[in-house]
C-alpha cells in the first residue's frame, strides 16, 4: 500500500526537477516565456497610477499654498514647483509605458507579415524616442524650459493618439491580409486535391462538380474580402493628423469588419468544400 503523503511529496519533487531540467536543456523555452510575459500591461497601469498620485500630491501642495501663511509662501511655492515637475515627469513616463505596451502588442500580434510589422513598430518607436528626449531634458531644466516641455508634450499627445489609431488599423489590416493569403494558399491545395480525385478511376462527376462549386464560392468570398481589406488599409494609411484620424479610422475599421465577415462566410464555404472532398476521398478508397 502506498503512503499517499509521501507519494505526493515525491511526485511534486520529481515533477519540479523534470521541468527545471527541461528548461535548462532548452533555453529557448525561458526566452519564449519571457516574450510572453513581456506584455507590459501591468507596467503601464503602474505608471498611470504613479502619474495620478503625482497629480494628487501637486493638488495637495497647491491647496497648502492657498492656505499658507505669508512667511511660508515661498517655501510652499517651491514645493508646488517641485510637485509640478514630478507630475510632468510621471506623465511623460506613463506616455512612454503606454507606447511600450502598444509596441509590445504590435511585436507579438500573430499572423502579421514582417515588413508590415517593422513599419508599424517604427512609428511607435519614433514617438517613444521623442518622449525620451523630453524626459532627459527635465533634469536641471529652468521654470521656462519646464513650461515649454509641458506645452510640447500636450501638443505631441495629439500626435500620439493619431499614431495609436493608425498602427491599430494597420495591424488589423495586416492580420486580415495574412488570413486572406493563407486562404488563397488553401484554395490552391484544395484545387490540387480536387484534380487528383478527378483523375481517379470511377470518380463521381456530380460530386466533383459540387466540390468545385464550393471551392469557387470560397474563392469569391476571399476575393471580396481582399477588396475590403485593401480599401480599409488605404484608409488607415491616409491618416495624417488629428483632423482626419477619427473619421478615417472609423471608415477603415468598418471595411476591415466587412472583410472579416466575408472571411467568416468563406470559412463556411470551406467547410462545405472539405466535406465534399472527404466524402469523395472515402468513396474512392472503397
Amino acid at each position, binding site marked *: 500500500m*502506498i503512503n499517499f503523503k509521501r507519494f505526493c511529496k515525491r511526485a511534486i519533487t520529481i515533477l519540479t526537477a523534470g521541468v527545471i531540467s527541461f528548461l535548462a536543456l532548452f533555453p529557448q523555452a525561458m526566452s519564449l516565456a519571457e516574450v510572453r510575459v513581456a506584455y507590459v500591461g501591468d507596467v503601464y497601469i503602474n505608471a498611470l497610477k504613479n502619474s495620478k498620485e503625482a497629480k494628487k500630491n501637486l493638488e495637495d501642495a497647491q491647496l497648502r499654498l492657498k492656505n499658507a501663511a505669508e512667511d511660508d509662501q515661498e517655501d510652499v511655492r517651491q514645493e508646488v514647483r517641485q510637485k509640478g515637475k514630478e507630475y510632468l515627469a510621471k506623465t511623460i513616463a506613463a506616455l512612454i509605458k503606454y507606447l511600450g505596451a502598444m509596441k509590445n502588442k504590435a511585436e507579438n500580434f500573430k499572423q502579421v507579415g514582417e515588413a508590415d510589422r517593422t513599419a508599424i513598430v517604427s512609428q511607435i518607436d519614433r514617438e517613444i524616442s521623442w518622449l525620451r528626449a523630453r524626459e532627459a531634458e527635465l533634469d536641471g531644466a529652468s521654470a521656462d524650459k519646464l513650461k515649454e516641455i509641458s506645452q510640447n508634450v500636450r501638443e505631441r499627445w495629439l500626435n500620439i493618439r493619431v499614431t495609436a489609431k493608425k498602427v491599430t488599423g494597420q495591424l488589423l489590416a495586416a492580420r486580415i491580409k495574412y488570413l486572406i493569403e493563407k*486562404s488563397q494558399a488553401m484554395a490552391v491545395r484544395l484545387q490540387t486535391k480536387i484534380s487528383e480525385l478527378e483523375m481517379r478511376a470511377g470518380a463521381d462527376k456530380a460530386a466533383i462538380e459540387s466540390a468545385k462549386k464550393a471551392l469557387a464560392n470560397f474563392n469569391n468570398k476571399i476575393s471580396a474580402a481582399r477588396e475590403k481589406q485593401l480599401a480599409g488599409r488605404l484608409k488607415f494609411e491616409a491618416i495624417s493628423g488629428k483632423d482626419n484620424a477619427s473619421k478615417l479610422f472609423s471608415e477603415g475599421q468598418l471595411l476591415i469588419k466587412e472583410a472579416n465577415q466575408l472571411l467568416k462566410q468563406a470559412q463556411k464555404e470551406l467547410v462545405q468544400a472539405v466535406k465534399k472532398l472527404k466524402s469523395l476521398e472515402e468513396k474512392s478508397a472503397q
Partner: protein
Amino acid sequence: MARKKQINTKSFVFIILVVATAAVAVFLIRAEMKEFEAIGNAGASQQKTVLIESADVFSFDAELERDLKSLDQDSSGLLLMQDDASLQGLVNDLKNLNF
C-alpha cells in the same frame, strides 16, 4: 521479494510522471516556437510564405475557424488599447502647471 516489487512499482509510476511532464512541456514549447518562428523570421522568402499548419486539406476549415476566432479575441484587446482615455485627463492637466 514483495518489498522489492513495491519499490519497483513506485519508481515506475514516478518515471511515468516525469516523462509525461516532459512530453507536455515539449508539446507546448514546440507550439510556441512554431508561432514565434513565424514572427521572428525577417527574410523576403519568409514574407511570401504563408503558414498553413494543417498537413492535410481536410483540416483546413478547422484551422481557418481557429484563426478567425483568434483574430476576434486579439483585435478587441488592441481596439481597447488604442482608445485608452486614461491618459487624456492627465495630459490635459499639464496646462495647469505653474513653474
